[in-house]
């Protein structure tokens, strides 16, 4: 059981680390949003699932509270993360930031 939880936490940490690494590596705001928000979400899903399983196994009021709160955090993360990154990307494009090295930009052609 413990090994399984550690494995989940390790996967989460690796993907969160990759997300941070993507911030340094990618050239512009759009590709950085890919790196940061995506890897963070996937990393966070595994971390939160580890917390939920830990809470349920522990049981009782304390563990149950932990599990339910973590599950709610996951639910709201899944709603707010895409909304926020979409707002950032749309705002950046409206402010005139062009994707670096883009092979095609249909949104620019539309205007």
């Amino acid at each position, binding site marked *: 059981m413990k090994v399984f939880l550690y494995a989940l936490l390790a996967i989460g940490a690796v993907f969160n680390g990759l997300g941070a690494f993507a911030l340094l*590596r990618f050239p512009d705001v759009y590709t950085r949003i*890919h790196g940061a928000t995506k890897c963070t979400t*996937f990393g966070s899903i595994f971390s939160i699932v580890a917390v939920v399983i830990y809470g349920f196994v522990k049981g009782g009021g304390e563990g149950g509270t932990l599990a339910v709160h973590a599950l709610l955090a996951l639910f709201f993360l899944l709603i707010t993360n895409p909304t926020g990154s979409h707002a950032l*990307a749309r705002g950046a494009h409206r402010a005139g930031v062009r994707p670096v090295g883009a*092979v095609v930009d249909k949104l620019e052609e539309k205007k």
Partner: protein
Amino acid sequence: MRRWGAWVAGAVFIYAIYLLLTLWTGKVGVWSLGELIGGAVIALLGAIPLTHFVFKREDLRLLQPHRWILFIFYLVGPFFLSMARANIDVAYRVITGKIRPGIVRFQPHLKTDFGRTLLANSITLTPGTLTVDVDDSTGEFYVHWIYVRDPEPRPEDVCGPFPSWARRIAE
């Protein structure tokens, strides 16, 4: 009439989440009396803005229970699979730096606001694709794609089974 329906549905939703957050706080069931009353007041007040924004143009078909079951099945099944696959793909691109970015346009033929929201959020949550804009009048999606395989893609090329699922759940 529809506004009242939206208000009740929103209040029930907020109250359910409030009750989940305050589990194991007291003796009435597992809640304390103060939490039950306070939560009801907050839910009734908090649902007022929902009547203006969330159900502005839609009917209340999202309250049909089979859509919720489909939605949960979609989340743990096809959606999670695509997201896992795309995450590994983007992890590979982070390490090697092989990117070919661009903003592509496609037409998923979704009519309702909720269908479009569901598809846009699914696309943005999947690594490698990011919804930059949605044309409100035509329903065309503008998606930033980290590795453009085809400058004029079909919806299935960009986001796999998501459009058909969005149609099944929301329309």
